[in-house]
């Protein structure tokens, strides 16, 4: 058929049904991937982040599981049995050494569970104290970050959504709290709160946790939410104005869809990453306070208080300081590296 440039005749060949071969071109070769799966793939490829993640999981699991079957308790003074004189040979044992009583038992053919890290000056098994200390430090870091996250999200989204005068006032308060010297305020509040709280808590179930830990949480709730709320406010303000949100609205997307498909995926990664990076910060602060004697209540150990206690016998028992020091550094280092890995894998703005 001769083609006439202005005719309305269509070329019928263009409308033949596609053959199987042609259809095969259109099939997606790779299964479609979600944002989350894509990020996980990138994270697994990052060997440093993966190793740090495994280290964190191992430390956390052993802190949870080991106390369940370990034959010694963290506050159990092995040399002290009711009704008998104190057996001082249990005190200050070197790693893998046994007290005279235990040596007698071994000679008699009994098996005695070894003291992996020896015992401290009160005859308490040092290994289980380190495990408990790790547990406390991790728990403090985790819960403090959750508190920071909740307050930060609340304040930040209120400031971001409502805007105007409320936003202005909130942000000025945030500015001032942000420029407060945080550590000094933490020391001040922790040293005062533990005196006040000790009386308020007496007799309640919270007493066992110790006023110092609670005052630590209060301090975190008071001071450390500011950067999180700044972050979330900034995210909300900038995301609201994005073109793709406008485009989604123009094509008739409901606000639920926009929030689920556009706002949360773009916001959540930043929030999770900064929460992950907040945990080592909290562990740091807790160990610092414990080291100054403002941390957990004795006999409950934390890694910082173990290190502080070990300062007294440092010339003869240096390992008692080195062990908690290594554990703290390992936790903080791997959390930091893992947080960095999370950021590399999940921050959509970095991948762009």
């Amino acid at each position, binding site marked *: 058929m001769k083609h006439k440039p202005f005719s309305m005749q269509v070329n019928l060949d263009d409308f033949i049904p596609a053959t199987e071969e042609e259809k095969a071109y259109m099939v997606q070769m790779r299964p479609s991937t979600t944002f989350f799966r894509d990020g996980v793939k990138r994270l697994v490829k990052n060997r440093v982040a993966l190793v740090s993640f495994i280290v964190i999981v191992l430390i956390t699991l052993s802190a949870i599981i080991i106390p369940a079957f370990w034959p010694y308790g963290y506050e159990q003074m092995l040399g002290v049995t009711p009704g008998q004189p104190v057996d001082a040979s249990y005190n200050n044992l070197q790693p893998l050494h046994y007290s005279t009583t235990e040596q007698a038992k071994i000679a008699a053919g009994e098996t005695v569970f070894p003291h992996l890290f020896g015992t401290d000056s009160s005859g308490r098994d040092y290994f289980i104290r380190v495990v408990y200390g790790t547990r406390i430090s991790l728990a403090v870091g985790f819960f403090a970050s959750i508190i920071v996250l909740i307050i930060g999200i609340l304040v930040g989204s209120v400031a971001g959504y409502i805007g105007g005068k409320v936003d202005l006032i909130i942000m000025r308060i945030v500015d001032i709290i942000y420029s407060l010297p945080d550590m000094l305020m933490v020391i001040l509040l922790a040293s005062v709160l533990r005196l006040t709280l000790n009386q308020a808590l007496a007799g309640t179930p919270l007493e066992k946790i110790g006023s110092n830990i609670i005052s630590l949480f209060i301090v975190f709730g008071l001071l450390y939410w500011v950067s999180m709320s700044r972050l979330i406010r900034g995210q909300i303000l900038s995301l609201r104005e994005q073109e793709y949100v406008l485009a989604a609205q123009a094509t008739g997307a409901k606000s639920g869809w926009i929030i689920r498909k556009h706002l949360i995926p773009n916001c959540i990664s930043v929030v999770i990453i900064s929460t992950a990076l907040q945990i080592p910060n909290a562990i740091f602060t807790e160990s*610092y306070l414990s080291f100054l004697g403002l941390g957990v209540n004795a006999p409950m150990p934390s890694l910082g208080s173990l290190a502080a206690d070990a300062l007294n016998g440092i010339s003869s028992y240096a390992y008692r300081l080195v062990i908690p020091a290594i554990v703290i550094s390992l936790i903080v280092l791997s959390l930091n590296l893992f947080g960095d890995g999370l950021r590399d894998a999940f921050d959509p703005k970095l991948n762009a």
Partner: protein
Amino acid sequence: MNSKNMMYILKRILLALLTVWVVITITFFVMHAVPGGPFLGEKAMSEATVKALEAKYGMDKPLMTQYFTYLKDIVTRFDFGPSIKQRGRMVIDVIADGMKTSVKLGLIAAFLALITGVVLGAVAALRRNRIIDKVIMVITTAFVSMPSFIMGVLLLIAFVIRLKWLPGNGATSGGLVLPIITLSLYPMAYITRLTRSSMLDVLGQDYIRTARAKGVSKWKIIFGHAMKNSLIPVITYFGPMIAYIVTGSIVVEQIFAVPGIGRFFVSSIINRDYPMIMGTTIILAILIVVMNMVSDILYKVVDPRIKFD
């Protein structure tokens, strides 16, 4: 210096003043909320003695009156009142005493951190992805993850107890070597990483390529063109660095027995010497707030590309 610059500086100074006032207020009211007051826990004291002591330190007056007197004394005379536990000494004198050692310690540590940090960062950037870069990055990552008190104690074990190279008593001049190193390692590592990344950023800029194309020598490019611009981000770290050194010195002075302000602070917390705690907190806070302000202002003034908000 245009009017926008002036406005920013003014605003920043205002914020600093406000912050200092908030610190003073929080410190004052928090310390006065403690149950029992400062004389609790001392060996049995009669009612009358406590009354007399309270009258002596002006604690029998209403709280708000005490607050305004305290504020007025600080603003007009920089006077923080007498110490309760160290009888007959003024808080400000005790602090000034401790400051002599602490300022020396802090300044040397800051300089050490700055110089080694910039040099190491520049070396790492110029030898990017070579062995030396990787070694520097691994070491600095380790240093950034280690709390200052742990670093201090490990150095103490290594150099004082095992090797016996240095004295462990910070009151002697040789005893300051380890505290200085302890305090400088974290900022040093941080500055190294900061300098490295900003140096890499600057080295990729067009004007560096232009200079290279003109045939400018390598060293002139590094020191004449690249160094200046890559140091700008380091300025922003001045404030946080001072804050780190101040809070770090509190524990480091404890570990090495340095007779500085950090040690007085800890002992006053243990002794419940309230005027001392308040005075030390406020003075250290002023130091940190002012340094933060200075580094913020410097940063904006040094780099004309940064927009004012």
